[in-house]
């Protein structure tokens, strides 16, 4: 028996809109600690990890661990039927092959039930170690979204370099090249507008902008985005979800061939 009641139903809607472009089918894992998802995109270049902790739900009941395979586009379709202020309850019985989404309007004068068929998905669950990153950049998510969008109109890849100066996003394409430098900036009125760079050592990595752009779909979930970079690791683009968890995107960098040849 599973019953999760999320008062801020719009969060779930936004989460779905943020990941459904990247991943089409995924297993949602429910345990006593929370509601989570880990899935790779079809080309195994990017990985999304979602966690909604049990404390974030108004009511959280999960008798035993449960993995529910869902088509995210179908799930998004159903969630789109929920109003932005609606309370969303996810219900599933043990052994059932369906999940029920219940939407209650804030005034409790309208209640809708949507039942969705589950699917069996072979998923490869990856262990993601906690690692130290050489550079961590925190910046307004809207700013990051804008940068990725702008750069993708010039080129296909972005080089993210973190130095003492700041973080530089650069690209080049047939029509020219572009560099955008964001400096550390903590002197802002609102903390969410700050750009904070914590750097152990300079790092520069190349990524496909296509993926970055789809990560930024999660910008509506959080005012700030955290970008963690290490030369040996995939970049982590993390959006915090108000006091209840996070959504993290991992993206493997592009690797220079001659380095590979050397090694």
């Amino acid at each position: 028996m599973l019953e999760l009641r999320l008062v801020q139903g719009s969060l779930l809607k936004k989460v779905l809109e943020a990941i459904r472009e990247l991943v089409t089918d995924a297993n949602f894992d429910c345990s006593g600690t929370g509601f989570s998802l880990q899935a790779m995109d079809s080309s195994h270049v990017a990985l999304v990890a979602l966690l909604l902790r049990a404390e974030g739900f108004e009511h959280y009941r999960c008798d035993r661990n449960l993995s529910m395979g869902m088509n995210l586009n179908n799930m998004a379709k159903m969630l789109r039927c929920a109003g932005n202020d609606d309370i969303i309850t996810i219900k599933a019985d043990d052994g059932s092959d369906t999940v029920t989404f219940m939407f209650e309007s804030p005034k409790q004068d309208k209640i809708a039930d949507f039942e969705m068929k589950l699917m069996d998905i072979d998923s490869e669950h990856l262990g993601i170690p906690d690692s130290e990153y050489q550079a961590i950049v925190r910046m307004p998510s809207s700013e990051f979204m804008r940068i990725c969008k702008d750069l993708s109109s010039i080129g296909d890849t972005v080089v993210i370099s973190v130095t003492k100066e700041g973080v530089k996003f650069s690209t080049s394409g047939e029509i020219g090249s572009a560099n955008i430098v964001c400096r550390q900036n903590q002197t802002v009125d609102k903390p969410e507008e700050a750009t904070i760079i914590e750097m152990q050592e300079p790092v520069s990595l190349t990524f496909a902008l296509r993926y970055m752009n789809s990560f930024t779909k999660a910008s509506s979930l959080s005012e700030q985005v955290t970008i963690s970079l290490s030369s040996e690791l995939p970049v982590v683009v993390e959006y915090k979800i108000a006091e209840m968890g996070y959504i993290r995107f991992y993206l493997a960098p592009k690797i220079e061939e001659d380095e590979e040849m050397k090694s």
Partner: protein
Amino acid sequence: MAAAVDQALLDLLPQIHALFSDPLRVISYKWLSRNFCVSSNDAKRLLQEFVNKHGTDLQVIYSVSGWLKNNPQNYCVKLTSGPNLKVIYGSVFLLTKQEFKDSCSIQIYSVQASIPKDTAVLWNPEFVQAEELFNQPFDKENCLRDNRFCGILNSFVKRTSSGKHVSSLPPKPINSAAAAALSKPSIIPKEQAQQENLPGPSIPKEVIGNKAEKNNSSALVKGSNDSVVKESSTSDHASKNKAQNGKAQPGNGGSLATMWGRASAKPKPPTTTNSTAAASVAATADAQICAKEKADANSSDDEQGVSYKRGSNGANNRKRRAVFDFSDDEEEENVISIASPESPAQLAPNPVAEASEDTKEYQKKLESKQDKPNSVKDCSKRMDSDIFSEHNAKSANTTNHSGITLKEKSTDPPMDDSKKDQTVAPASTSPKRRKVLKTRIDERGREVTEVVWEGEAAAGDKAEKNVGNADAGSRATLPSKPQPASNTDKSKASSKSAAGSKRPAKAGAKQGNIMSFFKKV
């Protein structure tokens, strides 16, 4: 309530009674106000008086207004029939279960022989009245146009009504916001209607008019002295009306008409350009307002005020008149820019046609709006027409500059081109020059550096890479142009991240696989 007012009002009671003998007639305070040229507040009092006298054999519809108890943010105005209200009278709440907070106002909205089944019957006479007033020739003064009964006071809007009339009537405080809310929209358009030949009794009007004339003959004289072009007759009317209504009208009550007059002063000229029916209605309304202002100014005792007023009004008039002379073609042009005022450069395939269609629709809307009984709509329509006119003004300016608005469009694409050129410039020039460094702060405050320069040596130097890139671009463009995305992707990545010394040959960054970083669990 001043005794004088009362007396004058009470004189109307028999007439109301006569009206009431028609079993189908709904007498609402709005209608009454316009028909007898009294302020809406007085009209309400009159109705109250009438109900007090003949309360037994008539049905009353009250308007109850106040803050709701269960939803204190909502200021609510409700119409309700007498019996419903009486049930509640102790603690005011309606049969609709909405309970009002303690201080709510109850006023008579209308009296009639029987409660109509269809509420439209309530509005209908008012609407017909308003429409007639609105359709009057614009040189005729009526209370709908000058909005003299508006119960709303606005400190920003000074009503220059002639001193005498005002003095005879001390400004009345408006008791309840509800009254204001109700009376404002209703009165604005309708008041004008009053003078007109309504199905109702025309006698009282004349009587009043005569009275007023006597009282204010001096004002009249002044008014007639004013010979500003063709509207002298109008001004007579205006002052007459003023006189009529002086009593009922709060002295410094702000009138929307004056507000409109001012607002329209600047951008008005082209407004009236539109010869269509809708536009002409607006235009005539404006002209009336203007005339009214003039009349006000003329009849005012304050000499300074007069001269000042005259100046401004004269200007207004000139502008407005000029408007009338506009030809049809120009109107068309104006229309264009109205349709797309913000982005004239948009690449609409046939902007002229589209725009003109738009305006047609707009006009239709205007007309249809006119047909609606809702006076609020009327009000908004007039606002619309002003906005409309502003657009027109803008467009007029553009036409002045470029002769034809279309020209603007033709000039714009070049601008786009030049923009493109700018952006392209670094890339295209870079292969030749080999040394371009551009740093600028863009509008978002970011530092954007575009670098194409000759690297000296450092293998890993970014600059070098860029050179390589540029070279690659210029040399390899021809073959690589139509490449599929993945290919270009690769080549770009390579040119960017490959060691500088390496010529843009084939090297490319390979997309890493996430599985090579994390192990399966």
